[in-house]
């Protein structure tokens, strides 16, 4: 009996120790080398949508697997924030817009962008077609549902485009009010909410923020600097596979969309199909070829960084444009692409 007790106590203590050490982050210097085929998690920045399509395509069509990666895509949503997930090591990769990356870096996170599937930002202000508003200059006398913490609000203010007659109220994720009656405008993603409104019988107009100069890269693949430093091979494979996934998605999204539908019950097949169509000009603008997609330039990062500094949203001393992105892996992936083509 005594021996039995000792064994049980031993197991109990061991469980306690394992539990305690499980809290430690991967960034500690004493963590072991990751096993050969590790489980890689990508955490999304919202519920699964068309904008995540390329990554899902790489999963669904076995592209990650063929590169030797065992990938799991973790949906995001309300209450899920990407930077802490990466910092705590609960996910290895994440999705974020360029302005998210800059703000996270200003908050002492070491997030870095690896590729930018959406070259132009989908962020827009959606207005009813039957309203008098045709462009930003005529944005007046409406109730604007918008997330006031996001950078484009102070951006619009700085360009004097937010007339005092515009009442700013929170946006909580539904098109109900805009559909219900006149006098309401709201923030939107060009490939998403407009369809929802039209399905409810209201024709809308999208005022793209990219057209007035606020154009962060969207839906970037991100990771922490430490992770990139320690696992360059994994990062290389991930970037290559993701590019291939996006190329696949833009060509033939049907199977992937079916999978996304299962991951997000609030989605519809129609919305996803619409999304893909609207994504194409954002991913491949101005005749950009698919085998050159996802690239990032320093000047655009610099522009965005300067914009956010002047809006006092980030600490200029902490954020240096060059360190916000790392396209080494993307370039190598694309080189291999071009050499593979006959």
């Amino acid at each position, binding site marked *: 009996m005594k021996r039995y007790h000792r064994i049980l106590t031993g197991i109990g203590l061991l469980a306690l120790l394992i539990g305690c050490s499980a*809290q*430690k*982050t991967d*960034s*500690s210097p004493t963590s072991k080398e990751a096993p050969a085929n590790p489980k890689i998690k990508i955490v999304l920045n919202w519920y699964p949508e068309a904008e995540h399509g390329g990554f899902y395509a790489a999963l669904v069509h076995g592209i990650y697997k063929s590169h030797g990666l065992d990938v799991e895509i973790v949906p995001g949503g309300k209450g899920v*924030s990407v*930077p*802490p997930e990466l*910092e*705590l090591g609960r996910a290895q990769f994440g999705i974020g817009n360029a302005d*998210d990356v800059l*703000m*996270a870096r*200003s*908050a*002492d*996170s070491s997030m870095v962008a690896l590729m930018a599937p959406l070259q132009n930002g989908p962020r827009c202000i959606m207005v009813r077609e039957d309203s008098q508003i045709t462009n930003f200059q005529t944005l007046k006398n409406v*109730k604007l549902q918008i*997330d*006031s*913490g*996001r*950078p484009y609000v102070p951006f619009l203010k700085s360009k004097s485009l937010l007339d005092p007659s515009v*009442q*700013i*109220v*929170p946006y*909580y994720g*539904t098109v*109900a*009010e805009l559909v*219900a009656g006149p006098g309401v405008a709201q923030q939107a993603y060009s490939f998403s909410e407009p369809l929802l409104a039209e399905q409810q019988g209201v024709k809308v107009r999208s005022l793209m923020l990219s057209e007035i100069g606020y154009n962060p890269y969207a839906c970037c693949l991100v990771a922490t600097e430490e992770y990139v430093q320690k696992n360059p091979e994994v990062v290389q494979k991930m970037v290559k596979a993701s590019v291939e996934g996006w190329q696949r998605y833009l060509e033939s999204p049907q199977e992937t969309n079916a999978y996304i539908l299962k991951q997000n019950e609030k989605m519809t097949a129609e919305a996803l199909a619409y999304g893909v169509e609207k994504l194409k000009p954002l991913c491949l603008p101005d005749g950009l070829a698919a085998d050159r997609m996802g690239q990032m330039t320093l000047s655009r990062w610099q522009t965005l960084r300067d914009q956010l500094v002047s809006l006092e*949203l980030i600490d200029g001393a902490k954020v240096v444009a060059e360190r916000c992105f790392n396209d080494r892996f993307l370039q190598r992936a694309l080189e291999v692409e071009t050499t593979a083509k006959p």
Partner: protein
Amino acid sequence: MRDLRRADNGSSLFANRWIVSALPPILVFLLMVGLWQWTVEFWKLKPIVLPSPAAVWKAATEKESVLIKGMLATGAAAGLGLVSSVVIGSILAILFSQFRWLRLSIYPYVIFLQTVPIVAIAPLLIIWSGNNLRTIVIIATIISVFPIIANVTAGLLAIDRNWIDLFRMHGASRWQSLAKLRIPAAIPHLLVGMRISSGLAVIGAIIGEFFVGNATSYDGLGSLMTQWQSQQRTAHLFAALVASTLLGIAFFLIVHLLGRTVFRRWTMAVDLESYDP
């Protein structure tokens, strides 16, 4: 015979009691802050995961005037919400106590108020009532009214049988019983309900601000929280959380003081100072 428990000077007894009862919570607070600081340092947590107490303090002092204005704005909405909870809740409780059929048929739906997910109702409220202070107060009221209804109804009904008999013996009418017996007897119950509702009213006002926006030209604590969260300014977010906790504590203290001053007669606390056998 002298009561050895009492100090000669009544006021020093009071002061000692005050210190003795305030000390433990203060010690616990210091302990918690110390533990927090240690946790951040030991696990090397990044501020975006958990900011240190020092970082939160820095953010709070940086945004001091913004936070104070936020507390005033949210406090005003919460205060109006609490007052309307008390008024509406008490009126409903009186009706429930007087009309049994009303109580049996409607009370179950009152319980709905306790459980309703505000996330579902807020959009409807905004469509009906607009993005303004009134809507925030409605939300705060909905969230904080149930404890008032439950406690006051119980207080109005749970009357000592002897008192009821006394009133019957003297031929009291239903309204006399209500005014001179039931309502005074229910006041301590009301205060118990208010203690709970005061915190809920603050939470309700903040949630209201999440959906409705600002009621005044100042940013309320709820608006500040959503903004700072979007901007990944976690230390500032924590500072706003601390401010909202302080606001809740302030409301609680106000209710407590009401019980000891204005409503002293009805709260029936044993009065040690003037006991004279």
